[in-house]
């Protein structure tokens, strides 16, 4: 179980998906991937500990707390990548999922470790639930 971050604020998080944008509210104590799944957005992941980069997203805007990730570097943040399996919002966010291959290229350029077998599978989002 992930330790609570002590932040009960709600943030608007926009996912830029192939079928269009989806916006959901995510609490500051929640991991972004968990919240997305609960909202019916299917996103890739593997280790779910902030290591393998399968869940990598490009951060189009906003700030994410990656303190729960086992392997996340300042260079990743500067290059605009996040690992949402262990990332908590610290502001409203706009994210583009499916960035594992881009993140691997960035890690290679930065001489940082990364698994080589992970790919971004087809990313889908379930239809909006009727309110």
């Amino acid at each position: 179980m992930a330790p609570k971050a002590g932040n009960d604020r709600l943030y608007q998080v926009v996912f830029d998906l192939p079928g269009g944008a989806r916006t959901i509210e995510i609490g500051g104590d929640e991991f972004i991937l968990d919240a997305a799944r609960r909202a019916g957005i299917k996103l890739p992941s593997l280790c779910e500990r902030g290591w393998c980069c399968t869940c990598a997203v490009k951060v189009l805007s906003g700030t994410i707390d990656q303190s729960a990730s086992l392997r996340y570097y300042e260079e990743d943040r500067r290059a605009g990548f996040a690992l949402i399996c262990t990332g908590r919002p610290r502001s409203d966010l706009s994210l583009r999922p499916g960035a594992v291959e881009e993140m691997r290229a960035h890690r290679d350029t930065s001489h940082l470790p990364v698994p080589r077998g992970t790919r971004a599978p087809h990313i889908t989002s379930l239809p909006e639930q009727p309110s």
Partner: protein
Amino acid sequence: MSNGNKPHATGRVQAGDVSQRVGVEAIEARGVNVGELIEKLIDAAGAEFTTYYYYTILRMYLAGHEDYKEICEDARLEDRAHFELITPRIYELGGTLPYDIRAFADRAGCPDAYLPGAQNGRRPMSNPFDVVTNVTAAQILEVLLEAERCAIRTWSEICDLTFGKDPRTYDMAARILNEEVEHEAWFIELLSHERDDVVRPSGHFRRGTPGEGPYSKNAGFYNP
């Protein structure tokens, strides 16, 4: 005999050509991206190898819990057996392990299973007697459980990549997956008991011998 009479004697590999492999061509023809599969297998081999190393430490720190130690030992030895099982397949497919063990560990597909209290491996060791003293069995069992869960996701993905296309890799992956699923069930049972005082049976008994590996070593199942 002409190829017309031997329908499987087709493809690009010429008689006597040792630069190509029919074993690779056959699975590529069925839709496997062999380069991607090799990368995935190396990541998975790295995870099994590093897990074997870290479980060696975790097992030592289950001090006073001899039952937990034995079960951790089974998982440790079976993960080593998985590494041994994966490695030949990487070479058969035309790949190779990284030449530097540091590069191998760095690209492991699952996280290092650090001992709790060891600051994710960064705890300074000023001397060889610098033993972590404040770690609990529940903390260790949580690490073991999450390591097995990552392995299950990894081997499920490799089963998906190879099902109906590459029976040799699929068979290997399914054998490893079987044992990883058992390991998860063990650690759910133990962590639930140790941390939450709740009974969640795994459905299994201990192995007959340490690290027996009934699936990955083709040993007999416990079925008296």
